[in-house]
């Protein structure tokens, strides 16, 4: 990027221009992703709860987030009388800055990264773990006991879940032998059995543990104890309104996309489709190859974010003691065991056996997913005549149907 600008601008200014363009592109990416993710969240929740969701604004309600945004900008920006005004105003920006800085080290394709760091995986962990600070400060500065409870819960939860999350990052890093996310992505070029997910049984399990811990550290349901509506009004953002409130949501969706990107780079082959046995940006030219790479990478991020939404609207919220117990009694020992296991696997298992296990895992998973998808289409959708129930209650009359003459 600086090399490109050095044609047009002298020495320090090409660096400045490259930085500004990269930051603007990342900001735009986070903004547009959040725009559509909020729409998708409402649609997903609506469909899961047998509703329609937003339909009025634009086709399929796609512009709902725009309407919401206009409403949020035009709302009054109030702070409670007892609040620490400086910290109250600062907190949303701190939360957003942490989520934004995570994207600096995230490659969207081969070399398609704002800042190529040798320790990108470690840097992302460090930056994403400081997002909690904004939430804790918001909880403190609001001068509201519900907010304070939310902030304290968030601090306890994130500090605990950080440990198994970091352990699960170390597992694919052990396999790859580098912390550079760009190199980790390049090592997984080719068919999908080259992905770190299928390297051995330990990385396979580590992906799921990582994904759950990442969900918890993004304070997403079923781990959204910091904003548990049924107990704490709205938790740490009870007192926020208007544009500051929306910054918290920008931070939440930003960190969801950041951890999903980290998960897809570390485990799911990064920007590779898994169905092309070469690196697209080297064979199909710079623009087409990188366009495909970025599209595949963003698609994988959306897939993982979609799973997070699916989990959010399907599972009930845990209690705070259950959240802490899940982390400290289960995830922490499991991730320690996985780390030891992957080290022993790399040292002891002969190459031939490792290859067999790799193909078995990859093809088994692919076969399982294919059968799942086929079985979704094999049966016709459940339907029942009017006034009766479908499925296991076949033939039973429902008392809820309104009789229309």
């Amino acid at each position, binding site marked *: 990027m600086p090399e490109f600008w050095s044609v047009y601008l002298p020495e320090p200014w090409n660096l400045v221009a490259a930085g500004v363009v990269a930051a603007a592109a990342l900001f735009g990416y986070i903004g547009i992703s959040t725009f559509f993710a909020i729409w998708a969240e409402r649609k997903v929740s609506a469909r899961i709860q047998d509703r329609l969701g937003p339909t009025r604004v634009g086709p399929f309600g796609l512009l709902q987030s725009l309407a919401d945004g206009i409403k949020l900008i035009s709302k009054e920006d109030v702070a409670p009388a007892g609040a620490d005004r*400086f910290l109250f105003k600062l907190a949303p920006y701190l939360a957003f800055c942490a989520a934004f800085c995570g994207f600096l080290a995230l490659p969207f394709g081969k070399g398609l990264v704002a800042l190529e760091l040798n320790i990108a995986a*470690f840097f992302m962990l460090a930056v994403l773990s400081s997002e*909690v600070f904004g939430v804790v*400060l918001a909880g403190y500065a609001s001068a509201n006991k519900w907010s304070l409870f939310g902030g304290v819960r968030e601090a306890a939860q994130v500090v605990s879940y*950080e440990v198994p999350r970091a352990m699960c990052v170390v597992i694919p890093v052990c396999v790859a032998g580098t912390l550079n996310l760009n190199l980790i992505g390049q090592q997984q070029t080719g068919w999908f059995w080259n992905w770190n997910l299928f390297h051995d049984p330990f990385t396979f399990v580590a992906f799921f543990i990582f994904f759950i811990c990442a969900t918890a550290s993004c304070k997403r349901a079923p781990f959204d104890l910091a904003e548990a509506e049924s107990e704490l009004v709205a938790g740490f953002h009870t007192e926020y309104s208007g544009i500051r409130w929306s910054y918290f949501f920008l931070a939440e969706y930003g960190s969801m996309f950041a951890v999903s990107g980290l998960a897809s780079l570390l485990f799911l082959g990064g920007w590779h489709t898994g169905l092309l046995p070469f690196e697209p940006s080297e064979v199909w030219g710079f623009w087409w190859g990188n366009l495909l790479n970025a599209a595949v990478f963003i698609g994988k991020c959306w897939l993982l974010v979609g799973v997070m939404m699916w989990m959010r609207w399907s599972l009930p919220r845990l209690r705070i003691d259950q959240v802490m117990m899940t982390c400290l009694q289960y995830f922490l020992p499991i991730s320690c065991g996985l780390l030891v296991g992957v080290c022993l696997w790399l040292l002891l298992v002969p190459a031939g056996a490792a290859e067999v296990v790799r193909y078995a895992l990859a093809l088994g998973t692919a076969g399982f997913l294919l059968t799942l998808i086929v079985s979704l289409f094999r049966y016709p959708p459940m339907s029942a005549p009017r006034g009766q129930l479908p499925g296991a209650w076949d033939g039973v009359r429902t008392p809820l149907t309104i009789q229309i003459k």
Partner: protein
Amino acid sequence: MSLPVVLFALLATVTAVSALGVVLSRNVVRMAVWLLFTLIGVSLLYLLLGAEFVGAAQLIVYVGGTLVLLVFGVMLTAQGPLRELRTPAAQLVVGGILGAILVSLLIVVSYHIVLPNPPEQDKLPGVASLGLAFLGVTETNPPAALTGLPEGTRVARTPVAYLLPFEIVSVHLLVVLIGAAYLARAKRRVQS
């Protein structure tokens, strides 16, 4: 003025001003926030110097861990006298004198240090050599000459590995962890 100098001046100003904020503010949580900016400034200085690993470690240890625990503790405990700290005049005087002595010492020493020789290769060593040194591989010493010594002294550099210190620190941390878990365990009442 090159770009690194401008960036350094900016970062150093921000870090120093927020360090002053830590000292001068009265509210404990405000102090923690100023400390947050100081620590982030220091980690950015490391990143500016090319020490990526140290910068990220600074962030994850101090910002993500220590400072969050600090604010957590303050929020749980701070009430009345602890939330508003008023420094007595005597402490201000003693602290000011100690700070002035430290600053003058640092200035004097920094004028005596000769400028470091630029290393042979321009590329900075990655984090891999650090990890290998922790595992006891001795061939990972940086090739450049030692800097910061008075002019004329030559120090022969012996190959050093850090396996023993690393292990000692690791075992120490493990002992601390087990001790903390022991202290925080659920206490059962003795049946009498």
